[in-house]
């Protein structure tokens, strides 16, 4: 009986961890390519959730079906943010860089609150309702689909970075910007691409969790913090590291919630951050 419960807890942790990984992958990609932390990353996720919500509310399109559109939309948002704001602060002092994306975070939250009210919204009937029973383990179908989707997108990103010309160029820019420029890689284009992909990853993650998570303007704040822990644990800039760390963080969160109490699970995950910083500041697979 206890073994069954343990298994249930572990599988739930794995599922949520895979989604954390997807959110963190975008954050770590942007950081890796241009040394800028996107404080508005959680807001990209929030926009992805609202995109799903409105696709459902206005056009009756299921969040899962809407995913490609959500991804495209958020890719566009990421590129627009890069072109309008980030491009101008690339050489600015670090303080300006922090304030720019931090201001963006507040702006997007404010706009969401202004246009869509601070209410919590839910998408009532999705294609992926109900439960799946796997032996002793019972899981929500939305969570399972979201986790599988997250694995798919993270895997696709990995393939893109390692197996395509464009992706390799992006990786090269992350490793050494100057050398990449000398090889004829257009740095500006790569930066815009990183923002597009990063935002799209967060948006897809938002679309995936919109099937089971309430949607509200400040929903990003929880995820950005956890994504940050994942990025630190995985090692700054490492996509593979973020994937592994996402799973670990998911497991710790759910296990901690189970053993200590659900109200402390976020605090536990955030304390992990301080422990990693003390014991292994470069994270699992970090370079620096």
């Amino acid at each position, binding site marked *: 009986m206890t073994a069954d419960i343990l298994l249930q807890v572990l599988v739930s942790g794995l599922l949520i961890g895979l989604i954390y990984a997807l959110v963190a992958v975008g954050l770590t990609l942007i950081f890796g390519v241009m040394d800028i932390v996107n*404080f508005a990353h959680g807001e990209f996720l929030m926009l992805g959730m609202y995109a799903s919500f409105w696709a459902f509310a206005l056009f009756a399109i299921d969040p899962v079906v809407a995913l490609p559109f959500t991804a495209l939309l958020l890719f566009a948002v990421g590129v627009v943010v890069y072109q309008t704001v980030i491009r101008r602060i690339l050489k600015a002092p670090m303080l300006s860089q922090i304030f720019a994306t931090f*201001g963006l*975070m507040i702006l997007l939250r404010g706009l969401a609150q202004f246009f869509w009210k601070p209410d919590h919204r839910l998408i009532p009937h999705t294609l992926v309702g109900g439960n799946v029973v796997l032996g002793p383990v019972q899981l929500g179908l939305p969570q399972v689909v979201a986790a599988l989707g997250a694995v798919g997108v993270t895997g696709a990103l990995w393939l893109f970075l390692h197996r395509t010309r464009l992706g390799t160029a992006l990786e090269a820019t992350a490793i050494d910007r100057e050398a990449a420029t000398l090889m004829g890689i257009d740095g500006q284009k790569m930066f815009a691409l990183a923002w597009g992909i990063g935002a799209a990853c967060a948006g897809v993650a938002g679309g995936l969790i919109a099937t089971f998570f309430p949607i509200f*303007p400040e929903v990003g704040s929880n995820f950005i913090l956890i994504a940050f822990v994942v990025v630190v644990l995985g090692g*700054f800039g490492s996509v593979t590291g973020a994937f592994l760390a996402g799973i670990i963080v998911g497991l710790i969160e759910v296990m901690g919630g189970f053993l200590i109490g659900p109200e402390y699970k976020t605090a536990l995950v955030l304390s992990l951050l*301080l422990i990693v910083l003390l014991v292994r500041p470069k994270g699992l697979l970090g370079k620096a």
Partner: protein
Amino acid sequence: MSNGPLVNPRKAMGALALLAGAAVLPLLISDPARLNFLVLILMAAQMGVAWNIVGGYAGQVSLGHAVFFGIGAYTSTMLGLSLGLSPWLGWLAGGAVAVLFALAVGWPCFRLKGHYFAMATIAVAEIVQILVTNSDFLEGAVGLSLPLDRSGPAAMVFLSKLPYYYIILGLLVVTVLVAWAIERSHIGYYFRAIKDEPEAARALGVSLTRYKLIALSVSAFLTAMGGSFYAQKEMFIDPGSVLATSISIKIALVAILGGVGTLLGPVLGAVILITIEEYSRTLFGSTGSGTDMIIYAAMIILVAVFSPSGVLGLLSDLRRHLPGGGAKPKKATKSAEIRP
């Protein structure tokens, strides 16, 4: 700057005139709501100046300063409730606890460079908020009320808003003086070296961690005093009112808007921020509409992109570019003491 006289007489006169104006201002106002508005500005200004010591001078951006604010509020309130300690002593105790906390948390977090340090401070503030919300000892989400039966100067509880105005004005003056003293001392030069040229500073033998910790501790102490003051003024605290993320954001915003790393920039930032907040509230009915957030977020992005030194930097840039720059004597005395 180090070669100049200790105090520039013109600047000193300007500062005294400003202070005298601030001291007389509340006597001309009878509406308690207006007076409260001024108190809110002074509170925001005090926190902004305190934040600026670590975020502006030393360049270590904290987005979790609510934790120090909350520590101040909870320490003085708990000491008052359990031991009957006067809030005047509780003030210092709150500051001391905040310093200990700053040292404990700063040590691991200062291993992080800029962006990630800022993120870590959010995480720390979040952890503390969760722990306090679930703490029975601190009455968790229910909050703590100050006893209403004690009033008068010894208990720092007053029926009128006026004494609060003068207390927070005094605290603001102390905070500005501390910031000013740091700005002029060798510590201030180390802070700026850490901010602008960390590698060079390290090569010259400046201990980065030690000076970052000093900056954070001083800032934490003063922010905690602001928190204790808030508790005395409101007579009620809970995690949502003294430890919330929104408070951390507000503290940072005040300094960023007005001018990071400038002595009086945060004061200007506080005037702008609180005014926007109050007017968007009266214009759009409620705080839930998010309009104040949109306005000041747009302002921060503009400041970050076009003028990293804030509104104050923008003003001094403008003056420099005007023909016969700095010709307006009335404004010039006030802003001349601030370097972008």
